């Protein structure tokens, strides 16, 4: 699984959120003040103050009953537009699923089936949520049915919240039905031999900063690159002091399985610089190290080491195939090199120090290499049922759909249907498929001071002149102007990065498809960051929607 476990810092996220919200509020206040100044002259401060006061009152004195009624109205309205017909789209998709997953046979792993369900749900439900939320209010304004509502004693903030709630409930219902259908479909179509892959493994990873390499001289260094474009894994050289090191924190006896062993799982990769024994895998050994006590206990303790079992999730397992699992017993023999000296060491008493367990990986074959990343070795706790991971991932999707409804409803408060759709769709695209690209660009800018191929204007220039991204631009004033402007465009992109929602937090497919439980806390996709992201947008969106609807001329069609 190509995934890097990184910690998510809630406090830092909250501080960042407050700063962004504060800055946005100040800008809004300033713009509002200037507009009021132009329109009302000296009365502007009083008008702005009155609007803020009314807004505060409307936003804090909400009626659950009225919001519920508005949500019900929204649902009824959507149902009258035959929204539930979208369920037939899913039924057709699942029925046709095998067409996209040809040659299922018994060799097919579970992963593509799970990915297919999650991807289908995501890409069909997003447009539904988008269209519902973006077109509802503008259609009501156009048909003047909103007049009937605003003449009733309801706050406009309640209209906004009611709409958001209504759309969210409706899409939640669809999602729930579809998720059940998807689960049944997965259970039916995944080949019998791949069914064991439908599980929810609970991994304990070491933090990214606690994973490092030792070079061939035993000094801290970098993992070798064996020619892969993708630098996810670093490689260690066989029969040298080169090692990959993981330090797991918080290790205690609760991590032991029912047999009293510490179960570890790996996904190392082997690379051969010579053929060696073709009928045997490249071998490795784990070393349980306590530097303070000078202990280095190898595992396995005898023999030539373990053969690397690569890419175990990429196909159905053969009957005789070994699994990439290592069960380390609590009691191990003390060794000098690979020779036992007769005494025993205890995993927790002797090797774990302050809850930290240091594990080093060595390659046992001369001239061969083994590649590893920080998530390639983990402590595997007791597995959970597949449904647990699946529904957690569905919960993540649900949060994403809710966020789309929130943004769509907010956009529809100040824009007409087509424009609101375009804006929301743009945010979804920028927040998910394009997010990595945007982050990559900004990371290049931070690290190297420039982006390969330049910014927007430089890229345009290169496109028109058919110049590749490596060639230097001609040294003249035009180039300097282009680069100057591009720098400011990138500054704009940096601000946009804070405003555009990070939809990556919601996409938990990678876990469930690979047979892992969805983590609660991680800088990537995880439950807590996903919830916080939705809450983080809900509050400003309600405020923005409320003021927009307050100021909007409802008579305009």
């Amino acid at each position, binding site marked *: 699984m*190509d995934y890097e476990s990184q910690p998510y810092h809630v406090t830092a996220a909250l501080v960042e959120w407050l700063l962004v919200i504060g800055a946005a509020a100040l800008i809004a206040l300033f713009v509002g003040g200037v507009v009021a100044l132009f329109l009302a002259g000296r009365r502007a401060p009083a008008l702005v103050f009155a609007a803020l006061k009314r807004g505060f009152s409307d936003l804090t004195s909400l009626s659950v009953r009225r919001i519920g009624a508005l949500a019900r109205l929204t649902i009824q309205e959507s149902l009258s537009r035959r929204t539930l017909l979208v369920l037939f789209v899913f039924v057709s998709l699942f029925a046709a699923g095998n*067409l*996209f*997953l040809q040659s299922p046979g018994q060799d097919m792993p579970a*992963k593509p089936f799970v990915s297919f369900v999650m991807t289908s749900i995501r890409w069909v439900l997003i447009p539904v949520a988008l269209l519902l939320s973006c077109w509802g209010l503008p259609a009501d304004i156009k048909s003047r049915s909103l007049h009937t509502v605003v003449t009733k004693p309801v706050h406009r903030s309640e209209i906004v919240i009611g709409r958001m709630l209504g759309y969210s409930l409706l899409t939640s219902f669809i999602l729930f039905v579809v998720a059940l259908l998807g689960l049944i479909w997965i259970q039916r179509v995944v080949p019998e031999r791949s069914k064991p892959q439908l599980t929810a493994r609970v991994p304990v990873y070491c933090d990214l900063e606690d994973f490092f390499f030792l070079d061939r001289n035993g000094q801290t260094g970098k993992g070798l690159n064996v020619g892969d474009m993708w630098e996810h894994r670093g490689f260690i050289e066989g029969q040298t002091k080169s090692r990959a090191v993981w330090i797991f924190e918080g290790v205690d006896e609760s991590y032991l399985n029912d047999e009293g062993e510490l179960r570890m799982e790996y996904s190392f*990769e082997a690379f051969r610089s010579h053929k060696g024994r*073709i*009928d045997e895998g490249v071998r490795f050994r784990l070393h349980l190290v306590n530097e303070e006590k000078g202990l280095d206990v190898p595992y396995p303790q005898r023999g030539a080491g373990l053969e690397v079992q690569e890419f175990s999730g990429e196909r159905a397992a*053969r*009957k005789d195939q070994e699994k990439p699992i290592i069960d380390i017993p609590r009691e191990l023999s003390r060794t000098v090199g690979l020779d036992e000296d007769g005494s025993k060491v205890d995993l927790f008493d002797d090797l774990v120090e302050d809850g930290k367990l240091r594990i080093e990986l060595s390659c046992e074959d001369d001239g061969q290499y083994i590649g590893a990343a920080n998530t390639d070795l983990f402590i595997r706790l007791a597995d959970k049922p597949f449904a647990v991971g699946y529904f957690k991932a569905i919960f993540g999707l649900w949060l994403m759909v809710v966020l789309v409804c929130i943004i769509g409803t907010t956009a529809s408060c100040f824009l007409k249907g087509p424009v609101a759709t375009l804006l929301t769709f743009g945010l979804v695209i920028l927040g998910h498929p394009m997010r990595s690209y945007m982050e990559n660009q900004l990371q290049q800018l931070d690290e190297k001071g420039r982006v390969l191929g330049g910014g927007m204007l430089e890229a345009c220039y290169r496109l028109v002149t058919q110049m590749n991204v490596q060639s230097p631009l001609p040294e003249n004033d035009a180039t300097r102007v282009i680069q100057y402007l591009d720098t400011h465009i990138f500054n704009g992109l940096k601000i946009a990065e804070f405003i555009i929602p990070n939809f990556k937090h919601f996409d938990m497919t990678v876990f469930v498809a690979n047979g892992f439980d969805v983590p609660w806390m991680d800088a990537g996709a995880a439950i807590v960051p996903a919830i916080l992201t939705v809450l983080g947008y809900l509050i400003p969106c309600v405020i923005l929607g409320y003021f927009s609807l307050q100021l909007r001329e409802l008579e305009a069609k």
Partner: protein
Amino acid sequence: MNNLTSSQRKLVYFVGIAILAVPIVFLGRPAAEGGQGGGMIAQSRQKYRLGEVSFGEVDPASATMNLVLLGLRGVAANLLWMEADELKEKKRWSELNSTVESIIRLQPHFQSVWKFQAWNLSYNVSAECDAVEDRYFWVKKGIKFLERGVARNERVPEMRHDLGDFYGKKLGRSDERREFREFFLVDPDTERWEGGPDTEINPDRLDNYLVAKQKYEAANEVYRLPGVEQHKMGEPLFVMYPYRSQMDYASARQDENKFGDVTREAWAESYRGWTQEYGQTDFPTPGGVIRFEWTHDELERKGEEEGYSLDFKIYWQGRYEDMVNYRYWKLRASVERTPELAAARKAFADGRVQFREEQDMFAARDTFYDGLEKLQTVIDNPEYRREDGSSRLLSDEADLVEDALKAIIIWRHILQDVLGQPIPDEFPMDEVWVDPQYEGLRASLLEEFQRWQGSGI
């Protein structure tokens, strides 16, 4: 127009649509069963064999996908290709497999897609795996993928030829050929294939080279259909492959120390196919039609019909023979089918086992000597001697010379160094040992032997 009411405008649109639909319907009338009749477009499609049916097996899902995507098929295909590249880079093989499936839904008749992605699975993905069983799994995936491509593109001989390459070269010539050839008969996934081969690629339980031969033969059959072309290689080379596969089969058996009648029969079949089928195939050349087995008289007669001189015809026959090394392979198949050479090769293989594994030096000495005697008999056969008395086998068959030298080196080592016996002045195949032209080869083989004490040769 602006004065028209809404209903009137709609009526005008409807009439316009109806008028435009008439020629579309007329031109695009579908053909009747068998491709007959129909509108002009259907007839043109039939004439230039551009219809879906004329390519091969129709994939309804593919046609549906194209309709659903309207004009965005190209965009979707591009995105999928990019995704496939990324998945390959990140070694997510199962998802790569699914993405490749989606690509062929969009581009079912683009032969490069089939070839590129089949190659990707069989050669690139398999090479990434460490376990030889996993490598074989991905080689099979690529082969199965290409098989489906062939079914959808029946009139593309190159794809069938590529399939032959996968069965023959990938399974038979890679570093893991020993294991792959075994797996082709007994799949490592014994649970699924019950101790037999994967019947999706080897339903008749044949050797991989014989399956390759079938695929190459099928490629030749398609190539001979009217209006079909191939742009992979020169015609004599393209057509040659079934016969070379037969020789590869026989040769591979020898490499695996199988020297019985089956191997000799395989060589006999190789010789028959090479001389009686391939050698009797017409090849158009700038010097008119030639056949490799035509005598000068036959060439002269054909030259008179075509208006070419005999010398010109001989020149082109020779040039084409050189292109495919025709004479060498004819000689090789001819000599390999003889019982004497088979016996000599068997003696060398047995001698190595006695020397290296059984350590029975007396038996090894006698076995090597026996093998050299048998080889000498073959060399002395007048059929393989030129008019000046020189041996055609020794001058053309470098492998044979090398085998003889290796056997002499081990035999001499046993006699001199192990048993302490004198080496006789004359011994079978000594003409090779003393020939100065093989001095360099002899020295390098000796060095190799000293380094590994027989394990390397």
